[in-house]
């Protein structure tokens, strides 16, 4: 099957949370078929690279195979955190979409939901 080269947003959803200067971003497969590709391609090294321009210094990945979910814990990603940052989005709530939009992934077509706008574009 031909692989598609798409943003992570095409195959996964997620939410960002904050504790101090640490952000956590979940990445959850829409379809089970995407799960092995998330495990292989959405590495902590690549995720740290997406947040490097914010000053992030470390990234840990946790895996929840039952839920087809990854959880990334990214240190120093919030420019001092909710009390200290001069940014507009003090909690870093928008950062889930930074990751979903910028990390590109190669997946077979059946890893993408049939109704996904990415398939009709």
């Amino acid at each position: 099957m031909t692989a598609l080269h798409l943003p992570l947003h095409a195959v996964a959803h997620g939410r960002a949370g904050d504790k101090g200067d640490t952000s956590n971003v979940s990445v959850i497969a829409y379809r089970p078929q995407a799960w092995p590709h998330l495990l292989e391609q959405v590495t902590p090294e690549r995720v740290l690279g997406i947040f490097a321009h914010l000053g992030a210094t470390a990234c840990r990945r946790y895996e929840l195979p039952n839920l087809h979910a990854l959880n990334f814990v990214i240190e120093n990603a919030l420019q001092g955190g909710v009390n200290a940052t001069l940014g507009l989005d003090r909690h870093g709530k928008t950062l889930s979409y930074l990751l979903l939009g910028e990390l590109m992934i190669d997946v077979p077509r059946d890893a993408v939901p049939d109704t996904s706008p990415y398939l009709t574009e």
Partner: protein
Amino acid sequence: MSKTVHIGCGAGFMGDRFDASLPILKSMETRDGPKYLMFEVLAERTLAAAQNLRRDDPDKGYSPYLDHYIRPALARAKALGVTIVSNMGAANPNGAARRVLDIAREFELDDISVATLTGDDLTEIIPTSEIAAMPTMEGIGFEGRPIVAANAYLGARQVAEAIATGADVVLVGRTTDSALALGPLIHEFDWADDDWDRLAQGTVAGHLLECGGQITGCYFADPGFKDVPGLSSAGFPIAECRADGTFTVTKPEYTGGLVNRQTVTEQLLYEMHDPAAYLVPDVILDCSDLQATETAQNRVEITGAKGRPAPETLKCTISVDGGWLGEAFMTYSGPNALARADLAGSIVRERLAAHGMNEPVRIETLGTGATLDGGNAAKRAGRVLPTDGEYTIRVATQSVSREQAQMVVDEMMMLYCSGPAAGGGHRGSVTSQIATASVLIPRERIEPHVKVELFS
């Protein structure tokens, strides 16, 4: 057959929908078994703000939103036998209790009783000089700044003790958010202190409920990708909890929103770090083998959480004065808007420098990816942005000096007559800030001071 405990959540943060409890209470009419309605309204900084309110007026210092949540719910909850459990007590649970009784009298409800839980305020237990010297995690050092608030996160065991008074309303200050659900479960099912797996399941129930609609399709929708019906009338969650710890998450009938594996998984991992080691005062939660199963439309059953012995220390939040945030906006639209917005930013930067501004200043152009670029325009590099359109220039600074913070707002306002062509929609504010840090304190130092009182 053993009973089912029904716990609804009517608020997930201090400004949450004031009317969300009404469909939950409607749904409780047809439910059998003990019933609870929780309201989680207390963030770390909210508590520090409440502490300031109490300092100004000893009767205040409870949630300023108490009336918004209690007035619509109190009479219905009492009539249906639904116990209200909330952290609206904030810095003054006893003051909150007196306010609830005032509301009850106004509604001619003469048999309302309110239990309070206190003892989370460290400043009443430990000298502030000793608190200020403690090593911190998750936040700033104190740097000699005066302590505004210092509170320990109490656990669910103490919430259960307050519920055991039989009160109609239970008001706490700082507990873990999930304790607002685990407390009722410990009380109803008499779970032992070392029944780790059941305590873990109850903690998951609390964690999933504590953000209100964030598990029923709110804060989730992404049109075309994650569509949610009826978001303007989304039902807030109800957990149906069983003695073995398993539970089902659902929402009231005839409401909008959505409960499925996706909404549950997003909320499960929200503000969680290691899913195998989530610490609360009552247990260390391990979600590694957790299962979320869709059993019917808008019904997800949760099983498989495991628990390990509770931590020896309690997490405590210390809040200090954080100075002032000055922040202002001006917007440019139409042809060449991007160039005019960028020019406005450079004018303000030059003028602030000329005035001797000595704090870091963030100047950014909204519409260019500014919330994702960390203030260094990294996301603009190499991208061709439309020059026509609508762009907002934003300037922000934080300072111990209110005057420095105000300077940013003033300079942005001056763009009205002295900036590039056609700037509009100036908004600016200077607001006082709280900075927080966390410390760990052995529980034996705190728990003997915890007190339950009953008001009626």
